[in-house]
């Protein structure tokens, strides 16, 4: 292209402690284009985004706006330069009104630099109208559903094209569609189109390639924090993209040995919780991996929480090897041999500031106790053993887990639970934010465990993972199980439809 690029990031590297999130990444955005950024979980997309947003500063590399070398000292700087972001996780202010969330920091003003609420609410209402959703602009953001939160984020972006205070030049959208219905996705594409026609550049990140092809002109592919290639969308095919994303054959990523499932370990019957879960019934047997698929917010983690006893179930029963679990008592579940590797590593899985050893031992303290005191030697033995078995890469066992890479952190969580050798392993988003190498390792471990006869309930938002690893697939939609597939007849398309509730007849 001949036109001057709006934004260029070149030779960008960024590491978090030992984790190399980005090494030599680059992206070039031209005015009026929608540019797709694709890559596996942990490829470094969000990190790149956070650099464009001024949240992280690159360790090295250059950022040029209109060819001018620039440094974003903070998010404010990026925003003033006309770069605005829709983050992967919604970032709203629960106590502020929806309208204010959209316009925070750039509320419409009237005489005397006073905020013009009427105008602000009216503008917000218009935005929602354009998005075809009915949200009260004056309502508090607290209590909004994950999807509604994304809608607000999108409205935020949409508001930029006619924002008085700053010029929307670059809009970055980091995986916004996971929670949205097709209708809302279409609306989002319209937004992108409007912005483009006004000469802005849109950077669109998504795991759904069909969306990429539907909405973008160019695509940049990343792998393991590295730039792989950029191409015009009509020069590449889906398969090419996937190949350069993964960089090896999928089979390698999903080692799966066929096993003959044994007797039932977990039997969930009519499980329900408030309005979040309704009438969930399924079983998991020894030596099989059952996957819970569905969109973000479908209720999969809720199922895990309810089984493990983090949340009290309001109806139904949970049996482990035939004996019913007490309601809302994680200790009881643990005693019965249930282990839960939760979805949020940083909040739920680990105590980030404590050492690797402390975290590995945290769930097994009862067994390390003599006369009420913890036997340090046994603790050290146990933790070293598991750290080695899972090949955790670490400096010293005493180091805070926060210093580990995402993947190694995930291994620590795994080890923490495998140390109790459970009969049922519930693993929620096993490879979220984990780089490709570690990812296949985790899969290998899972496969091995199942081979040894463990029962695994795997929750995952990644279809390849689901298809690659699961013996059976349960698809959830809005708190219900909308479909069940055997490994044989599970396909991306069928699961997606069941997940978006378009084909509940696919069930049974």
């Amino acid at each position, binding site marked *: 292209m001949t036109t001057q690029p709006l934004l260029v990031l070149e030779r960008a590297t960024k590491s978090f402690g030992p984790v190399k999130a980005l090494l030599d990444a680059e992206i070039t955005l031209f005015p009026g284009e929608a540019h797709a950024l694709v890559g596996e979980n942990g490829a470094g997309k969000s990190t790149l985004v956070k650099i464009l947003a001024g949240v992280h500063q690159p360790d090295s590399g250059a950022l040029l706006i209109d060819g001018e*070398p620039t440094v974003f000292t903070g998010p404010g700087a990026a925003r003033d330069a006309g770069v605005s972001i829709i983050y992967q996780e919604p970032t709203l202010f629960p106590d502020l009104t929806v309208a204010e969330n959209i316009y925070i920091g750039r509320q419409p003003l009237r005489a005397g630099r006073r905020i013009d609420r009427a105008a602000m609410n009216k503008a917000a209402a218009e935005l929602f109208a354009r998005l075809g959703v009915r949200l009260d602009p004056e309502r508090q953001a607290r209590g909004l559903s994950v999807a509604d939160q994304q809608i607000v984020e999108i409205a935020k972006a949409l508001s930029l094209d006619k924002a008085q205070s700053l010029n929307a030049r670059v809009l970055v959208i980091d995986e916004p569609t996971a929670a949205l219905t097709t209708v809302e996705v279409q609306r989002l594409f319209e937004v992108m189109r409007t912005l483009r026609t006004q000469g802005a550049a849109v950077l669109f990140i998504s795991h759904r390639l069909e969306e990429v092809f539907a909405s973008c002109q160019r695509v940049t592919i990343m792998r393991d924090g590295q730039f792989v290639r950029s191409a015009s969308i009509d020069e590449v095919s889906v398969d090419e993209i996937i190949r350069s994303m993964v960089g090896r054959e999928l089979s390698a990523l999903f080692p799966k040995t066929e096993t003959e499932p044994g007797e039932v370990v977990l039997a969930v019957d009519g499980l329900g919780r408030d309005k979040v879960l309704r009438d969930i019934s399924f079983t998991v047997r020894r030596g099989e991996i059952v996957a819970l698929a569905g969109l973000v917010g479908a209720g999969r983690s809720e199922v895990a929480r309810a089984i493990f006893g983090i949340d009290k179930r309001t109806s139904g029963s949970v049996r482990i090897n035939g004996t019913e679990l007490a309601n809302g008592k994680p200790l009881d579940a643990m005693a019965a041999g249930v282990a839960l590797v939760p979805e949020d590593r940083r*909040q*739920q899985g680990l*105590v*980030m*500031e*404590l050492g690797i050893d402390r975290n590995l031992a945290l769930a097994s303290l009862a067994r390390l106790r003599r006369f009420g005191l*913890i036997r340090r030697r046994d603790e050290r033995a146990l933790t070293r053993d598991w750290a080695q078995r899972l090949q955790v890469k670490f400096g010293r066992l005493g*180091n805070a887990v926060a210093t580990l890479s995402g993947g190694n952190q995930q291994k620590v969580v795994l080890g*923490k639970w495998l140390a109790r050798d459970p009969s049922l392993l519930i693993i929620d988003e096993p490879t979220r934010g984990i780089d490709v190498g570690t990812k296949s390792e985790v899969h290998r471990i899972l496969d091995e465990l199942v081979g040894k006869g463990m029962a695994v309930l795997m929750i995952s938002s990644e279809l390849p993972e689901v298809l690659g690893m699961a013996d059976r697939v349960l698809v959830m939609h809005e708190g219900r199980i909308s479909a069940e597939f055997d490994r044989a007849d599970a396909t991306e398309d069928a699961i997606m439809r069941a997940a978006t509730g378009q084909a509940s007849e696919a069930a049974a």
Partner: protein
Amino acid sequence: MTSDMTTRTPLPPDAATAEKRSPLRALVRWESALVLVLIATLIFGSATSDHFLQVTNVFYIGLNMGEIAIMALPLMLIIITAEIDLSVASMMGLSGAVLGALFSAGWSVWAAMGVALLVGLAGGALNGLLVTRLKLPSIAVTIGTLALFRGIAEIVLAPRTVTGFPLSLTNIGAVPIQGTEIAWSTLIFLVLAVIAGVVLHATPLGRAIVATGWQPEAAQFSGIRVNRLKFWLFVLSGVLCAFAGILFTLKNASVSYDAGTGLELNVVAIVLFGGVSIFGGKGSVIGVVLSVVVVGCLQQVLTQLNVAPEIQNIVIGGLLLISVIIPNGREALRRIRARARRSSNSTQRKALG
């Protein structure tokens, strides 16, 4: 109340990760600092006041710090779980008031003490319930019970001052343990401190407390019953504060409803000065013990030098401030340097481009 009471606009994760070095190392650092302060205090004391090295000071310091020190222990545990209890001093007063009221009503002093302890238990349970069941912020709750407990004490006892407790008991305020210069409250504190130390640093319970303080959700997901834990810590605090109230009453051989008014802030100060992080998770018993000793010695020597109590307040406040600024200060410096480096890089890049 972990980060809630701060402006710690959470660091971008990268900074965060860099900031979090092993908490143990941080502790060691802080405690050795306290030891230095202690040595300095001792040298200063013996150099400036010719009465400072008398053994009786051991007794006196124990006498003056005893109750505060005892109340500091459960408060430390509570703060490590990232909660706080501001009602400690009021509970101490309430227990004393109950003891006095019942005793003056003709009860046996022992029975009266029993009831006082029960009152402590009940008060602690009230705090615990409000915090764990209703999920109310402990700072607000305990400000409320701070007034409530003191008020009840007032109802129970004011305007009377009760005296006439058996000399055998009130002696703990006058004479040290046979053949030593150690006050009874000192001994009790040391015993409790040892127990607290073992529990906090060597038992599953201790691990649970620490984990809860750093990351309550992760603790819950590891099978730690966070609410139950916090509840019992508040109960413990109530009981030990009631116990401190009894000691305080006997020490003074008398009690009135306003005993120990305003001490809560001193206790909090002692704990924080001991290197316990108000965000929770971080803290050691040794640190708190050292902080008790340092403050005790300091006050003693300053009083002997007849330094105005106002100045003593300034010294205590200053120490408290320093104790939190130093650890965070290096972090602040790190950030500032980082920023400087960045901008310089950028200029270079400009030169290149």
